[in-house]
């Protein structure tokens, strides 16, 4: 990285003539550092301090006196609570194995077969991303509950409990896992397959000696992501869990049901442990992933094979039918007058005014919250990532910022939301005025989804040669002009991806915001939860459908915008 040559703004007295070559720190650099520090401070306020408040609360009694590990002792000696640890681990392990296997075969079909309709299958598999995790669970009840038309498939077992939770979680995390495995699969080297074939290895042997080793890190990473998502998810077990308690529903029960914030803090600390372990393990694995793909690698081109392709088509069709079925059942249930006794159609369930959850205002609030999150979140994340990547010197600050940006990934939403109560509702906190407002929901949601957005931005920025900055600097163009005229336009696809990611997640998230909304800022996703709690499942499904439609619509808009803007800003990528 070349030091900036910018005489006019050099701080006097900082660099003596004849000194060894040293990085000059220009006024511009100070601006960049200032902004970097500001964003760092934001993250400290938005994640570090709240987590500290959560941690200290778990060591306190109701009056705020420090009592050491007494709360944790109580937790592990209350059978109802410690069962939940066991239950959570069981559910998460079983669901992870199932979902990784299914997603693996699905990804295998998409990359290694010549089956038809690949892009359709890929699109359908992503549908669950548009839903709050409560919705697939609600659909499962309509399908497999006492009145479910598929009840016979359970052979007398009950959907309320572990079976229902596993089914719901598998559907909910399927797209996330699929995307990770797809990326790993698409990075494999076609030459290895050719070599394997010419050495006379059988298909099975090639699979075990070439395919699996090539994607092992991707699989491990997918496993960790699935495990974390499942153990911290609260929507599915809340709806179909029955009497089968898991940690995530326990946090909610302790806090909302009993207003026992200290015990809630303890449970969410316990919930933090597997999430942090999985996160750390995933980071280590990711580091090993680098450089599988060399410059000379040839993309693998599958050969048609009618039998294999037919099996793969059948498998993908089955999964796709299940996913579309989940959505279709929710839609149908939301339009039916009185399931299962009067199946005539009505829009009555979409009249939310007489139901719990805040009505259509909640829906409007959700859109407002998601829009703010997308706009502000994208700006903060992108500028933050830009400064981490492109500012000069200041290694400690940049490394610290990178670390802060990775932290939110390891924190489950429920823990984050609870941490926000402790931190922002403390009477002596000057930021107390934010409590129970729209801004706190926006801040919380941006923070909750910060890491993935940050990584997306960093990846995009890494593709831009540092020469741009050097050239601009030597032409005495201020960095913000380069940023606005070069960096931003080049990164338009990534910027749109980030804002999309923020918007969709803000629409569907329940876990963190469930502790933070007020009567004036009820949200659609929370309304789904509250209507389900009150037994209004048709209306809960209806609100869920509204969320899917909105998130889906945003996605469509995103696709159109990306195409349109890409034509204008990305033409340079083609010769």
């Amino acid at each position, binding site marked *: 990285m070349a030091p900036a040559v910018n005489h006019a703004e050099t701080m006097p007295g900082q660099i003596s003539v004849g000194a060894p070559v040293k990085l000059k720190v220009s006024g511009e650099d100070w601006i960049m550092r200032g902004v970097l520090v500001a964003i760092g401070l934001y993250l400290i306020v938005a994640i570090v301090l709240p987590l500290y408040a959560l941690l200290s609360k778990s060591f306190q009694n109701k009056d705020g006196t420090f009592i050491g590990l007494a709360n944790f002792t109580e937790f592990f000696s*209350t*059978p*109802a609570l410690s*069962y*939940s640890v066991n*239950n959570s681990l069981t559910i998460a392990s079983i669901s992870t194995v199932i979902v990784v296997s299914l997603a693996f075969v699905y990804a295998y079909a998409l990359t290694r077969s010549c089956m038809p309709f690949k892009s359709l299958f890929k699109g359908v598999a992503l549908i669950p991303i548009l839903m709050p995790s409560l919705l697939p669970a609600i659909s499962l*009840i309509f399908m497999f*509950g*006492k*009145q479910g038309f598929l009840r016979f498939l359970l052979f007398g077992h*009950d959907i*309320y*409990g*572990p079976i229902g939770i596993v089914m719901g979680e598998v559907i909910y995390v399927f797209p996330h896992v699929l995307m990770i495995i797809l990326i790993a699969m698409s990075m494999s080297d076609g030459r290895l397959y050719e070599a394997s074939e010419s050495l006379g290895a059988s298909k099975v042997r090639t699979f075990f000696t070439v395919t699996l080793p090539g994607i092992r890190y991707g699989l491990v990473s997918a496993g960790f992501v699935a495990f974390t998502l499942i153990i911290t998810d609260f929507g599915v077990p809340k709806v179909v869990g*029955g*009497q*089968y*308690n898991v940690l995530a529903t326990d946090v909610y029960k302790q806090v*909302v*049901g*009993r*207003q026992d*914030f200290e015990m809630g803090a303890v449970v969410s600390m316990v919930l933090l442990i597997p999430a942090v372990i999985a996160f750390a393990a995933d980071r280590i694995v990711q580091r090993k992933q680098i450089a599988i793909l060399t410059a000379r690698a040839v993309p693998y081109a599958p050969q048609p094979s009618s039998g294999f392709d037919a099996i793969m088509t059948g498998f993908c069709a089955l999964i796709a039918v299940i996913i579309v079925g989940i959505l279709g059942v929710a839609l149908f249930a939301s339009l039916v007058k*009185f*399931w*299962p*006794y*009067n199946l005539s159609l009505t829009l009555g369930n979409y009249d939310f*005014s*007489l*139901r*719990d*959850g805040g009505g259509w205002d909640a829906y*409007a*609030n959700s*859109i*407002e919250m998601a*829009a*703010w999150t997308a*706009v502000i979140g994208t700006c903060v994340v992108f500028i933050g990532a830009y400064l981490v990547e492109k500012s000069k010197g200041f290694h400690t600050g940049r490394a610290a910022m990178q670390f802060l940006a990775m932290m939110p990934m390891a924190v489950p939403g429920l823990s984050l939301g609870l941490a926000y109560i402790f931190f922002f509702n403390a*009477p002596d906190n000057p930021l107390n005025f934010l409590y129970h407002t729209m801004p706190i929901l926006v801040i919380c949601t941006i923070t909750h989804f910060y890491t993935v957005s940050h990584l997306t931005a960093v990846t995009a920025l890494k593709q831009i040669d540092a020469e741009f900055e050097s050239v601009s600097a030597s032409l005495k163009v201020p960095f913000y002009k380069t940023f606005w*005229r070069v960096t931003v*336009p080049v990164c*338009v696809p990534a910027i749109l991806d980030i804002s999309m990611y923020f918007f969709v997640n803000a629409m569907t998230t329940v876990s963190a915001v469930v502790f933070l909304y007020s*009567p*004036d800022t009820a949200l659609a996703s929370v309304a789904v939860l509250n209507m389900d*709690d*009150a*037994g*209004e*499942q048709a209306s809960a499904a209806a609100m869920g459908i509204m969320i899917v439609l909105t998130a889906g619509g945003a996605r469509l808009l995103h696709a159109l915008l990306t195409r*349109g*803007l890409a034509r*204008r*800003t990305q033409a340079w990528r083609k010769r």
Partner: protein
Amino acid sequence: MRTNFMKILTAVAAGGLMVLGLGAGSALAKTDLLVYTAIEADELAKFKKAFESDYPDVNIKWVRDSTGIVTSKLMAEKSNPKADIVWGLAATSLMMLGNEGYFQGYAPKGVKKLGKLYYDQVNNPPQWVGQRAWIASVCFNTVEAGKYGLPLPTSWADLTKSVYKGHVIMPNPNSSGTGFLDVSSWLQLMGEDKGWKYMDALHNNIARYTHSGSKPCKLAARGEIPVGISFAYRGAKSKNKGAPIEVIAPIEGIGWDLESFAIVKNTKNLDAARKLADWSVSKKAMKIYNEEYAVVAMPGVAKPVKNFPPGILSKMIENDFAWAAKNRIRILNEWRKRYDSKSEPKKKK
């Protein structure tokens, strides 16, 4: 190219800001009254409209949840109460909170016209005033019962018979006021020892406990479960909607509680809170209460409500509110210890 890109970006940003702007800017000079309530969501709009048409200068803002949730929320906020008035919450909860010094006394205009049983006789002026009684009932889905060959239960004792195993749902008393009045009435009817023994037996038949008191009946109405222990209003309402259910008042007697209101001690909107209190004991309000509930605080107003179980009034137990309020926390903790740990996967045979 660059200018076009900027134009698009500006347009997108401007559009976003306009959407965001729509939410703001509807602030009239009204008093916002923050009302904590456990009244069912489908009735709230009606009450708000009726009250605000009489007092257009007050704007009710509801915070609604199940009784247990509202109660523990109020407890948690004790040092810094947010609510102005608690309205339509179980009298037992209000008495318990009142013992903690949560409320201020106020005699609403016309409170003397209410039955003596229906408002605070200990404090003068009264701290809590009852509005109407909500009464336990059992919702029984006849279509589903037919499938499993279940007989129509007539008593609480019937529900512990093995034929109902896995076919009964009741609300969790920790979150639901209906759940609590069931538990409290069993303990009062049978005595503590026999009451808990009864619940042990019932627990064996329970499929699961729900968060809200209306959900068991809604589930029964939808055929998700044959028997839902719930309350009469929800049962009647579901039956009116065409659900194939019978609403049953068990013969031993049924628990009930009073939906009541109380003004929070340090409210900044005392005037508005008193207006709501005055309105809530008026004959007009009583008539609205009676649209869905059979027992209201003002004598001579109530007319029978369609599809309430026959003879329900004579089956209401002599409810000792003071006892229930005093023992509420102890009962709930005991209940949680006994039944909330149903966490192991149930082995069904």
